[in-house]
């Protein structure tokens, strides 16, 4: 739904603003790598702009540290109304190793309403491209939650056996 909305809201080109909120520059280098001719994002009309006032989307990298928190919020407020926020790197997604540190607010989601998460430490340029393409509706989402179980819970199993026996009591009576 968000992808459809993004397609409608940003029909032509997406101008991105790159916001570093205390990242280690790993993600920033990968973002710059995406802008090079090798991964050319200008195919999709994506362009890096220097001011948040010109931007449609913000590429947030880094766990939002305490000194940068008000600045990140101000940069977000300065962006014009239909706006997207991409969290790039595991720091921006969930805080990384510093999710509960005293001077870090613990990920971009605590500071801004995030729209897309691109995990990785740092994410590959392809992963960033994939995330942007996901926002533009060019590709389908691949990540999905996984649930694995070694065995059925024995209590549930015994209850189910009991229910099965109750349900099939007629066979017992037929035998008698």
């Amino acid at each position, binding site marked *: 739904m968000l992808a459809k909305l993004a397609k409608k809201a940003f029909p032509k080109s997406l101008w991105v603003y790159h916001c570093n909120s205390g990242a280690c520059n790993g993600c920033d280098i990968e973002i710059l790598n995406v802008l090079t001719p090798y991964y050319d994002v200008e195919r999709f009309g994506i362009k890096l702009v220097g001011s948040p006032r010109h931007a449609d989307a913000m590429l947030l990298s880094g766990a939002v540290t305490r000194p940068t928190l008000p600045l990140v919020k101000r940069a977000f407020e300065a962006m014009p109304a239909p706006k997207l926020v991409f969290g790039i790197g595991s720091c921006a997604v969930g805080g990384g190793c510093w999710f509960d540190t005293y001077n870090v607010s613990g990920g971009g989601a605590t500071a801004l309403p995030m729209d897309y998460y691109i995990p990785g430490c740092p994410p590959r340029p*392809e992963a960033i*491209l994939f995330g942007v393409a996901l926002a533009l509706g060019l590709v389908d989402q691949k990540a999905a939650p996984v649930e*694995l179980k070694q065995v059925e819970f024995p209590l549930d199993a015994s209850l189910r056996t009991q229910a099965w026996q109750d349900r099939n009591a007629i066979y017992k009576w037929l035998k008698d």
Partner: protein
Amino acid sequence: MWITSKFKQIVLALKPGRVTLGYPLTPRTAPENFRGRPAWDHTKCLGCGGCADHCPARTILLRDVCPEIRVLLYDGSRCTYCGRCAEICPEKAIVMTPDFELATGSRTDLAQSLELFMLTCSRCGRCYDMENRNAVDRLGLRGYRYDNLEARTVLRRTTERFEPDVLAATETFERPTRMEE
């Protein structure tokens, strides 16, 4: 002459040809030793909790729901893909897959959960009560057993010895009841 330099530029640009990848439209695989999303093999996992203890981002949370069932939750949102869990696993149940296309709209899509059936005692037939171990073992506990899986956070209320009221206060904990009750 600027015009000759332009011709020179054209010749230089034609030499390497087109280098742009058609990535999101054409597939592209990660290099061989790339560490992407970790994958658990639930048939091999013992439930020792080594991965939970050694995860630098504390992204693997572990809780004993009851003596028989141990729940392992991998909350991928803050995973740094360091591969320490795969390295430490004694049964090699964790493999770092080359998946990198993990972009989502919600962080819950990155989670993986395992329900592990714990070992039973050969004499009484019940599982070992992992809460009441000896004092030396309790010193080695980092409190990973008291993480809040619902809120996906690490609770820092570790106590020196197991206290049931602290456990009850920190999580929605449900002890198994007997069939007759």
